[in-house]
């Protein structure tokens, strides 16, 4: 009988500890959970080269009027006015994290969505990479970088070099495509069009935030 009472006491004590521990969770101050990508995962993303899109592929996307991509020029406005790729919008790197009156990121609608690929470009790849890194850190998906930037664009698409005589069939096919693309884009390093580029209104659905498993 005494044993039974001891047993019961132990049960009650354990039950009380459980209730106190569970009750404690209700009283704890809310823990701040960062929505940003962890440094470890960012490093993984940096080492993953799938973020690159080559100028040839971009030329193909522009020519075929593919609606599933958007070129984003991250250079300053003056450079953008001087030369831009057809259909590109301009979000200067220094304005990428601008906030609106409500305190939200102004460009989030464009940068955090799952309806199309955003391709950043600058003259080289420094600015476009910085833009990509910022969006990645914010956990935005579907942002890519134009490999080699505009320098590579000019070199491969605009100023097309004739392949050697012993070039393979694939090299010849690439040359033919580039030559045609060069004609399409005006060749000689000029902009395809000086018409002002209208920033397309964002009609897609803003990517919903992932369900936060953390508290």
């Amino acid at each position, binding site marked *: 009988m005494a044993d039974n009472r001891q047993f019961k006491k132990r049960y009650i004590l354990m*039950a009380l500890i*459980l*209730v106190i521990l*569970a*009750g404690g*969770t*209700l009283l704890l101050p809310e823990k701040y959970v960062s929505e940003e990508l962890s440094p470890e995962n960012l490093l993984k993303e940096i080492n993953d080269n799938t973020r690159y899109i080559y100028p040839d592929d971009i030329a193909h996307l522009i020519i075929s009027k593919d609606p599933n991509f958007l070129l984003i020029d991250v250079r300053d406005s003056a450079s953008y006015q001087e030369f831009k790729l057809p259909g590109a919008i301009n979000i200067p790197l220094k304005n990428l994290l601008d906030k609106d009156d409500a305190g939200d990121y102004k460009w989030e609608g464009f940068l955090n969505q799952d309806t199309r690929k955003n391709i950043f470009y600058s003259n080289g790849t420094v600015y476009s990479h910085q833009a990509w890194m910022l969006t990645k850190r914010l956990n935005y998906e579907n942002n890519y970088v134009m490999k080699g930037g505009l320098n590579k664009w000019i070199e491969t698409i605009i100023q097309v070099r004739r392949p050697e005589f012993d070039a393979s069939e694939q090299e010849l096919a690439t040359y033919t495509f580039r030559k045609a693309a060069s004609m399409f884009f005006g060749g000689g390093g000029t902009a395809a069009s000086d018409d002002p580029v209208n920033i397309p209104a964002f009609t897609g659905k803003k990517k919903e935030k992932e369900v936060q498993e953390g*508290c």
Partner: protein
Amino acid sequence: MGPLFTAADEWSYVIALVLGIAFGYILESAGFSSSRKLAGVFYGYDFVVLRVFFTAAITAAIGLFYFDYLGWLNFSEIYVNKLYVGSAIVGGMIMGLGFIIGGFCPGTSACAAAIGKVDAMIFIGGVVIGAIIFDAGYPLWGEFYESGGKGSATLYEDLGISRELLLFGFILFALFAFWATALIQKKVSNKTHKY
């Protein structure tokens, strides 16, 4: 702090083996290889299985919460099984039926087979045959199996309450279940003694 090991770690299989042996040993030591004990839950004369699993669940839940809060593990990286409502209900019923008929669940059957129980070995044979039938007949029930997918759903999100509140409620419910099952067990045991 965590994870101490990841799935990609070359030691993960060794860790899994050690954990599996420890789990099996404790399961056997606690008497879970006895189908009488397991069937006792359905007949109301022994609720130790329910108490042990419920205790494990609430201890793990509280532990996970505090570990996450203190930054020792990242709760968001814990894999949550995907929920398919229809197949979860039907599968649960089939599993329950198998449990009551065979007197084992898949884990305890392996445990009982390891100590040489023939009924558990036959039970495992049944599990394998069932898996083969499920696989072979997948085109027939595959559509139903994948219907009503809710992703990695959690109860607190579906109920629209905080995780802390659900945890608190769950623990109160567990304690109530312990008390209620103790009463049922007492009643059933007294009845058994009469006859």
